[in-house]
Structures are given as structure tokens and as C-alpha cells.
């Protein structure tokens, strides 16, 4: 009962390499990226469908699917330039998507932590966990503080859209810091089962969470709100890597579940 070895690496390699090639050959890197985002949502949907209704991991996977669907709405709203009262709907969808995404990561941590095989029951282990999570949270707060300073340095926004964009940028950073912290907590929780198939999807998610935070740092530097607003090709490739990590996580999870089903059949 194993997912094929190399599936995650292959997925990320094809996604990032494909984006690079599409951009270099046809200037169609963004179109490739949209395809990766759709594929990630489809893969997450397949995982949700594979779990039974009462399975504990199904809920966080459903939240992850929902956040990926909201990402598609963000792109659609940006493309069609939807707006309400002078504020782009893209910003609103981005906020909602970030909340759901962070909730999904916290949900995964909660589910994994509730298994007696992984959760630490000793006081010493709990203290270590709290110190680790506290340190991560402090790093996240420092990052948000930096973000706020950057916004102040650039001057206050003058339009409603500008304020919405600034708020979205700060909120997105907070959310991505939460996702990153959740990812690190997942790694900490999973360390006893590293080497086992069950750990692999979650390790990919942690890696993807870290990549999203790097993209956020680049967005702040560029004064942008969403990945579609940046021109830097390295940042775009890291963005593709982040999404492809979540696609890889879903594919590995799917392969694991299907191999179990085939073996049972």
C-alpha cells in the first residue's frame, strides 16, 4: 500500500518545468499556471471523493478543495475585472480563500494530532511543541510587522481599491504565515512516521506552505496583492512550485487511497 515513488517530484518538476518552457517558448506561462491551479483543484476534489463521509481527513481535504476553488474565482474575477463599489472582487475572494486555506492547514494539524500514534502525551513533549509553535508564531508576527512597515513606507493608499489591496496584502501575509506555521507543525507531528507513506502528502503540503510564504515576501517587496500582479519570473516559478506541491500532495494521497482500495478489492 504505497504511492508510486517519485510521483511528487515528477508532479512538481513537470509543473515548474512546464511553466518555464511555456513562458520561454510562447509567453504563455500564466496560462500554464492557470492549468496547474485547475489541476490542483481537481486532484483535491478526487481525494475528497475517495474518502468516505465519516473519515476524519475528509473535512480538511474538503476545506483545501474549497480554497483551491476560490483561487479559481480570484483569477476569474481578475480576468473579467469584476468589482463592487469600486473595489475589485478579486480582493474579496482572495481574503475568503486565505481564511479557508489557513483553516484547512489547521484542520490537518488537528486531525493528525488526534491520532494516538502521532500525538505527544508527555508534559515535556507538549512544552517543546508549544515553544516551537510559539517561535513560529513570533516569526509570523515579525513578518507581518515588516509588511505593515513596508506599506507605511510606500505611503497610505488614496483610493478605496488601494486600501482594499493593502488590507488584502497584510491579511494574505497573516494567512500564509499561519499556513507556514501549520505546515511546520505538521512536519513536527509527522516526524515519527517520516519514511511511511501516510506522511508524504502532508510533507508536500508543508513544503508548499513554505513556498507560498516566499511568494508572499516577494509580493510585499513588489507592492503587489496577488501572484497575477507580479512580473518577476522567479517568483512566478516559486508560485507554480507552491501550487504543484499541493497538487502532488493530493496525487500522492489519492494513489495511497486507491492502492488500498485495489488491494481490498
Amino acid at each position, binding site marked *: *500500500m*504505497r504511492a508510486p515513488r517519485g510521483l511528487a517530484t515528477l508532479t512538481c518538476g513537470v509543473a515548474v518545468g512546464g511553466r518555464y518552457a511555456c513562458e520561454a517558448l510562447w509567453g504563455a506561462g500564466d496560462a500554464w499556471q492557470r492549468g496547474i491551479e485547475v489541476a490542483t483543484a481537481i486532484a483535491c476534489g478526487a481525494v475528497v471523493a475517495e*474518502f*468516505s463521509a*465519516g*473519515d*476524519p*481527513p*475528509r473535512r480538511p481535504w474538503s476545506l483545501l478543495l474549497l480554497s483551491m476553488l476560490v483561487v479559481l474565482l480570484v483569477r476569474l474575477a481578475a480576468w473579467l475585472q469584476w468589482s463592487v463599489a469600486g473595489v475589485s472582487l478579486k480582493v474579496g475572494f482572495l481574503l475568503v480563500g486565505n481564511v479557508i486555506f489557513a483553516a484547512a492547514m489547521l484542520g490537518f494539524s488537528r*486531525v*493528525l494530532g*488526534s*491520532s*494516538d*500514534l*502521532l500525538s505527544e502525551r508527555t508534559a515535556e513533549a507538549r512544552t517543546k511543541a508549544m515553544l516551537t509553535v510559539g517561535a513560529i508564531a513570533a516569526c509570523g508576527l515579525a513578518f507581518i510587522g515588516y509588511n505593515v512597515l513596508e506599506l507605511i513606507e510606500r505611503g497610505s493608499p488614496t483610493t478605496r481599491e488601494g486600501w482594499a489591496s493593502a488590507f488584502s496584502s497584510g491579511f494574505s501575509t497573516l494567512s500564509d504565515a499561519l499556513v507556514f506555521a501549520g505546515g511546520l507543525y505538521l512536519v513536527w507531528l509527522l516526524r*515519527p*512516521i*517520516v*519514511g*511511511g*507513506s*501516510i*506522511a508524504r502528502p502532508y510533507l508536500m503540503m508543508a513544503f508548499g506552505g513554505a513556498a507560498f510564504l516566499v511568494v508572499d515576501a516577494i509580493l510585499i517587496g513588489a507592492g503587489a496583492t496577488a501572484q497575477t500582479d507580479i512580473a518577476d519570473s522567479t517568483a512566478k516559478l516559486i508560485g507554480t512550485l507552491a501550487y504543484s506541491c499541493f497538487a502532488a500532495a493530493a496525487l500522492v494521497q489519492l494513489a*495511497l*487511497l486507491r492502492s*488500498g*482500495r485495489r*488491494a*481490498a478489492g
Partner: protein
Amino acid sequence: MPIDGSFADRVVAVLTPLLGPHTAKRALAMICKKAGKEPEQLGQADIELAQSTLRPMLRTLIGNEVTVRVLADLGGPGGAP
């Protein structure tokens, strides 16, 4: 999945691909604690106890369907809840 050796060896062999060697041994230790036996004392009579110990923990991680299959690999009547 035919596995030669003791029941304890089978538990570790079945769980290692999913959980890694460290946690597979930890799961065996949990079964031993519940059975009040040493690993080498575990036998076919302890299959149901092993399944009932592992079922909730595995279901939380991987869902019911794969859990049933893994527990069936331990032997006995299968892991159906």
C-alpha cells in the same frame, strides 16, 4: 500478504510501509501493553485485540477503507468495523 515469522513481526511488517519503522514498533508496543504481553508472546488469538487497538488510530490518519485493508493484512476475519 503472507508474512513468515511471529505475529509481532507481521504487525511491524504490515504497518511499516504506512507508518515507518519507528511508529510501527510503537504501535506494536501499544498492542502489547493492551494485551499485557511481551511481543514474542503475541499470537493469532490477539488479532482482534490488535485490530481494535489500531483501528481508531489508523482511521484518523488514512480513513476507513484503507484501515480495513491494513487490519485484514494482519490476518483473522478482517478489519471491518
